[in-house]
């Protein structure tokens, strides 16, 4: 089933009631080799019954440590001070036994990874009824019945039958539903969700956020929603606390915060986040620099070094969180000026403002041509004698073209075959089915030719820390591709500083090891390495998903500049549609190994034709509470099935909202005929594969 829903508006601030959860000056520190890490440095908040507090921040901002501190789940080495008052009772300093009585009863928890939150050896019904019986006196039978009710509440189809199933028999989204059922089992007064949807695909994320809302309504619990995604809090939180370097730097109602942030960090974060909606693509404004280390935090405001409007006082005084008239609270010395409009938190326009994010693609030569690419994997069973029991059609007849100076974004959820497509191109061997042509040469797998083609195709991998050998300093990392194509030492020595400057790094970093670089710097090294051999085609596999928002924007702008300057053809694989919108000239949407829609970015985002593309775009939360809550959302049911036995006709047919309303004749076509790519009238290059659109 597919629902079209809108989100409710933020709850009006209730009249003075007692908060269910009060955190007072919470401080958490961990010992480490380098010294004491002050992960949380004085966080306070009140949570009123039935309200949702969104805590947002980047990695290392202390948001998860805060959640763990509230739940009493920190490792014993952590030093916790302050107060966590749950219904007036202080949880800090309670022993594990006393805390266990509170956790799961008054305090429900939802974690990021639903697989590790469930015990693999018990059925979900057993786990739920155990959770109920620990805190309530129920008979086994009553507990089981209640467990089935809970599974029904969180939208598990056939709850009575599925209660006997084990966690591994559920998909990721269904597992997270079970975790939510566990969290609300004992009607807690507070729910804490730590990045509840980060591990999930975007269409599933939309479902889970809805379930979370239902769960909250049913139990009347207050919710602490911790996330790095500004879109998620925009749609689902009533109040927002922004964390930076272990402190709350701004706290306000969701509407005020997004409308007029008064802390320069919040403003910067909002300017740096790529979005899928709204008119023209605006260039993203990165926040320069990186968050400070928390071993020995700076004496002044932790954000001062990255702040465009920092005054001298900011570097010496650490501002406390204080009330800003008509605008919640902020920890900024200049918040008053920003709030009354006399100071722009973005500061004076930086020199060399980035130009247009993407220009019209110059009509370059075709660098990559993929025709009817097919890749299958055998499904085997048995240990010693492997029997082939099926075939996964990972890539099933994919065709596209990529020209010099052009960026193609390949998007789709996990399991859609986008990464397999990319690996097939990089393998430089004759594909299982179809043709691949790079720079005019057909990939056939002959030795000498492969060596020649290697120069032309390079890759940037997802996790920059994993992709760089930790034992090699930057110079040697960059030298490697050059040596692989036979460059001598003098050539390498000349090229390395040139490459570092090209990606905006100081050549002095060349004798550092990857561990001594920040995330953004590492990804720049990864990009420099890929550019070393002056390739014609650059392939980027989720190049930004390991980076924080404030750093992402800088890399997006860098990639846009490089593509323009070097007239590179780039193929970007990403699941984040906002990122793709800012990187790509053209977008290809994949589902179950097939392209369902391709088109110029603007046309495709403004007027998606295929029902899957529409649902995908609709599922991405928009970081603007007004638009996010006003828009019609198309929530797609179910999850992408495995590609072992794809439907004979349209691959999307089982989840398709159009199919459900289609007439008998159209239904028959969708079931039996695979739709061919059809051009959209009046939009050159925009094609979709759907019978009904």
């Amino acid at each position: 089933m597919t629902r079209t829903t809108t989100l409710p508006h933020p709850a009006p601030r209730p009249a003075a009631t007692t908060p269910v959860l009060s955190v007072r000056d919470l401080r958490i520190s961990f010992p480490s080799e380098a010294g004491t890490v002050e992960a949380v440095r004085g966080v306070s908040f009140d949570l009123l019954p039935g309200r949702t507090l969104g805590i947002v921040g980047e990695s290392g901002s202390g948001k998860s440590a805060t959640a763990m501190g509230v739940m009493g789940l920190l490792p014993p080495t952590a030093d916790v001070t302050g107060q966590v008052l749950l219904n007036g009772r202080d949880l800090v300093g309670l022993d594990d036994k006393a805390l266990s009585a509170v956790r799961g009863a008054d305090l429900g928890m939802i974690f990021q990874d639903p697989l590790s939150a469930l015990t693999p050896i018990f059925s979900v019904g057993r786990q739920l009824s155990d959770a109920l019986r620990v805190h309530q006196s129920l008979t086994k039978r009553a507990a089981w019945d209640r467990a089935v009710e809970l599974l029904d509440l969180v939208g598990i189809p056939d709850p009575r039958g599925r209660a006997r199933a084990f966690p591994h028999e559920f998909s990721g989204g269904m597992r997270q539903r079970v975790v939510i059922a566990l969290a609300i089992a004992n009607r807690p007064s507070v729910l804490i969700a730590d990045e509840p949807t980060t591990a999930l695909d975007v269409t599933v994320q939309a479902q889970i956020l809805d379930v979370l809302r239902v769960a909250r309504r049913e139990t009347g619990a207050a919710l602490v929603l911790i996330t790095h995604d500004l879109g998620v809090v925009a749609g689902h939180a009533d109040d927002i606390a922004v964390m930076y370097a272990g402190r709350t730097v701004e706290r306000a109602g969701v509407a005020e915060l997004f409308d007029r942030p008064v802390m320069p960090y919040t403003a910067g974060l909002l300017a740096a986040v790529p979005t899928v909606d709204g008119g023209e693509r605006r260039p993203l404004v990165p926040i320069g620099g990186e968050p400070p280390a928390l071993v020995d935090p700076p004496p002044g405001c932790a954000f001062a070094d990255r702040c465009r409007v920092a005054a001298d006082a900011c570097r010496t005084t650490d501002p406390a969180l204080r009330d800003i008239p008509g605008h919640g609270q902020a920890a900024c010395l200049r918040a008053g000026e920003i709030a009354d409009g006399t100071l722009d938190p973005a500061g004076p326009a930086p020199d060399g403002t980035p130009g247009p994010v993407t220009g019209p693609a110059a009509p370059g030569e075709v660098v990559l041509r993929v025709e009817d690419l097919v890749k299958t994997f055998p499904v085997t069973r048995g240990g010693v004698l492997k029997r082939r029991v099926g075939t996964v059609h990972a890539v099933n007849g994919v065709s596209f073209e990529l020209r010099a100076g052009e960026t193609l974004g390949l998007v789709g959820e996990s399991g859609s075959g986008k990464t397999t497509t990319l690996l097939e191109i990089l393998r430089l061997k004759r594909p299982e089915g179809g043709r691949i042509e790079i720079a005019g040469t057909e990939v056939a797998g002959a030795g000498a030719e492969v060596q020649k083609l290697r120069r032309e195709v390079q890759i940037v991998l997802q996790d920059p820390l994993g992709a760089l050998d930790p034992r090699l300093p930057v110079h040697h990392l960059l030298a490697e591709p050059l040596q692989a194509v036979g460059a001598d030492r003098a050539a390498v020595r000349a090229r390395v500083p040139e490459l570092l400057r090209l990606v905006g790094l100081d050549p002095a970093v060349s004798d550092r090891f990857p561990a001594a670089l920040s995330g953004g710097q590492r990804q720049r090294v990864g990009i420099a390495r890929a550019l070393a051999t002056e390739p014609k085609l650059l392939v980027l596999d989720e190049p930004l998903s390991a980076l924080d928002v404030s750093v992402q924007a800088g890399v997006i702008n860098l990639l846009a500049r490089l593509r323009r300057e070097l007239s590179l053809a780039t193929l970007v694989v990403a699941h984040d549609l906002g990122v793709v919108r800012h990187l790509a000239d053209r977008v290809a949407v994949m589902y179950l190994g097939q392209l369902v829609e391709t088109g110029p970015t603007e046309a495709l985002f403004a007027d998606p034709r295929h029902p899957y593309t529409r649902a995908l775009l609709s599922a991405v939360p928009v970081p603007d509470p007004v638009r996010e809550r006003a828009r019609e959302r198309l929530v797609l049911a179910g999850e992408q099935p495995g590609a072992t036995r794809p439907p004979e006709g349209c691959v999307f047919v089982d989840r398709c909202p159009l199919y459900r309303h289609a007439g008998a004749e159209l239904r028959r076509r969708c079931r039996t005929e695979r739709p061919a790519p059809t051009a959209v009238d009046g939009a050159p290059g925009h094609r979709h594969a759907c019978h009904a659109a």
Partner: protein
Amino acid sequence: MATTPETDAPAHRLSRLYLRRFLRNRLAVTGVALLVLLVLFSVCGGLLTPYTYADTDFTALTRPPDATHWFGTNQGGNDVYASAVHGLRRSLVIAVSVSALTVVVAAVIGTGAAYLGGRIERMTLAVLHFLLVVPSFLILALVSHRLAGDWRVLIVVLTVFGWMSTARVIWSVSTSLRERDYVRAAEFMGVSAPRIVRRHLIPNLGSLLIVHLTLGVVATVLSETALSFLGFGVQTPDVSLGTMLADGAGTVTSAPWLFAFPAGLVVLLTVSMTLIGDGLRDALDPTSVTGAAGGRR
């Protein structure tokens, strides 16, 4: 963006960078100094005494240390100082070369099998597992006895029967390393297989190899001792620390100097190898605190 002056050019040779990081570690340098002293002792120590390990002084049987016999004498009237000098040299050569050879052979076979995979990997593992279940000590004893205790043969034999367990460990660690992103990245860059093994797999096994190298030295001294004790290793009149320990073990209470001096040398050798091993590991490991301290600019 400041341009870097030529004088501030980064260390382009990896070896020089590793050396700099190694020299920064005081304990490791102590270890090297200790090893150098031990080597000097084994090479030049003989010049300080008129006796050689084969000489017998029938006027002084089982004498405690004095002015003529610095480390005393044993039951046969051999000078313990001269024997220790010779025994240390013999043991050093055997232990260090066996250990180094074992680690090299194990690293090449382990990483090669893991990286190449497929049929080569399966066959290598089959041979390795077969050798592991063969009672190697027995074969070792028989082979070395047949070859009449030539210490060079001992090196070969100890290596041939000693590489398997190290190779097994290296193989299993390498199988996880070959799945790493940076190995995949190198493949996509077109780096050749031998180079990937040399450049990415072996250095990342660095600390493992070094632990095995240092432990190997100690273990070889011990197995050489055991063989010599059973009469299969170094044969009289040749002397090693092992034969000396075997001789001295029976008289620890009545003539402690016979045991104490060779035992002390084994301890010094072990300590120096451990210090060097730790230092090398820290120098090769970019995340280690000791190596990096002050090294970042």
